[in-house]
């Protein structure tokens, strides 16, 4: 695709948000960065500008305006903040791709706060009924973005969603970020994906992976 797409990153200065912003500045995208924590924004902008001088990146101080301009909205905030964000952007996120990256972990990192019959992505879809919610970037750690090849293998990144065009678009984002995209299934598959990350976090804590770990599906 030649036409540059505009991507709003809500929560752009968080661990994940900034990792996504940096890795997508390599691609043919225009990035709009929004955060409620303005103090880190200047740093992030400078980092991107020095790493990718041609990057089309701008910070914007309103999530509504950012989402209005965007073709794709990445909600890079904790699960607990989803409702507040959804209420703000609902009107301008209509029919747009909204990427849910959140893992609804509990405070002790040993379980999910969502009941078994749902997921963070499906809850976001309920809040944004006329948007195309896609689960992505939830099975990768922030550090993986700087190093998407670990132990000689390119990290897999799983995607779930119901709209085939939207899945295709997000697949390209995942590829631009350096990961091997795998479409795992419809949006309810997010339940499995969110649990996969729970497992990876628990293993990481137990065996001290130092937050640089990822999934790789081995197959013939």
């Amino acid at each position, binding site marked *: 695709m030649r*036409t540059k797409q505009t991507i709003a990153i809500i929560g752009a200065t968080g661990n994940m948000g900034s990792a996504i912003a940096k890795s997508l500045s390599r691609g043919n995208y225009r990035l709009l960065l929004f955060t409620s924590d303005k103090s880190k924004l200047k740093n992030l902008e400078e980092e991107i500008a020095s790493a990718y001088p041609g990057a089309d990146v701008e910070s914007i101080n309103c999530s509504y*305006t950012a989402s209005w*301009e965007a073709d794709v909205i990445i909600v890079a905030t904790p699960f607990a903040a989803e409702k507040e964000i959804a209420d703000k952007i609902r*009107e301008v996120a*209509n029919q747009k791709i909204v990427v849910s990256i959140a893992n609804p972990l509990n405070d002790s990192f040993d379980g999910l706060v969502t009941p078994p019959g749902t997921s963070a992505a499906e809850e976001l879809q309920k809040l944004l009924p*006329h948007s195309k919610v896609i689960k992505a970037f939830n099975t990768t750690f922030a550090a993986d973005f700087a190093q998407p090849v670990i132990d000689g293998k390119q990290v897999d990144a799983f995607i779930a969603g119901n709209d085939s*065009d939207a899945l295709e678009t997000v697949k390209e984002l995942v590829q631009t970020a350096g990961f091997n995209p795998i479409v795992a299934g419809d949006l309810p598959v997010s339940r499995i994906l969110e649990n996969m990350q729970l497992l990876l976090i628990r293993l990481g804590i137990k065996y001290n992976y130092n937050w640089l770990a990822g999934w790789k599906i081995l197959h013939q």
Partner: protein
Amino acid sequence: MYELFFKKVAEKITLTPAQQDIIKHYLIPKKIRKNQYLLQEGDVAKHAAFVEKGALRAYSVDDRGTEHIIQFAFEGWTISDLYSFLTGEPATYNVDALEDSELVLISKAAQDEILKQVPEYEAYNRLQITGAYLAMQKRLTAMLSLSLEERYINLTRLYPNLIQRVPQRMIASYMGLTPETLSRVRRKIKDK
């Protein structure tokens, strides 16, 4: 957000509030800034864009790099590469914003879904396409049979704010003239 869009629809067909709500669910509100592309040649035109506010143009670029403007779109107009939008083939036009603009985008899939759920919308859609066809025919006839002065006057009637909002070189490009020829045409009209 969709005021002008529904106002234009209401000029052609009558919808119940419930039907308007159904249609609203399928519309994409999109802000675009001056000089940004909505569509570049070679990509498939996934949307038709209705202009709530602002101005856009559709143009092709020939082998020598010269731009040929096909259409301007101001408030209340719809713009896209219609051929690409309807067939799914790559676009031969570029569409970009001449001013900061607020658009309402409709995808082909959304349009099909609206047509299924709100059959009345079919009449509106048909009138839109008929209108585009008639405009095209008028433009072609004017090109072939009217004098440059007549064509320029017709153009300023079709787009009342054109001269204030669009640079002369783009008007010249739309008419298939060099800017120098256009300024001669304008002088001639003034002198009359």
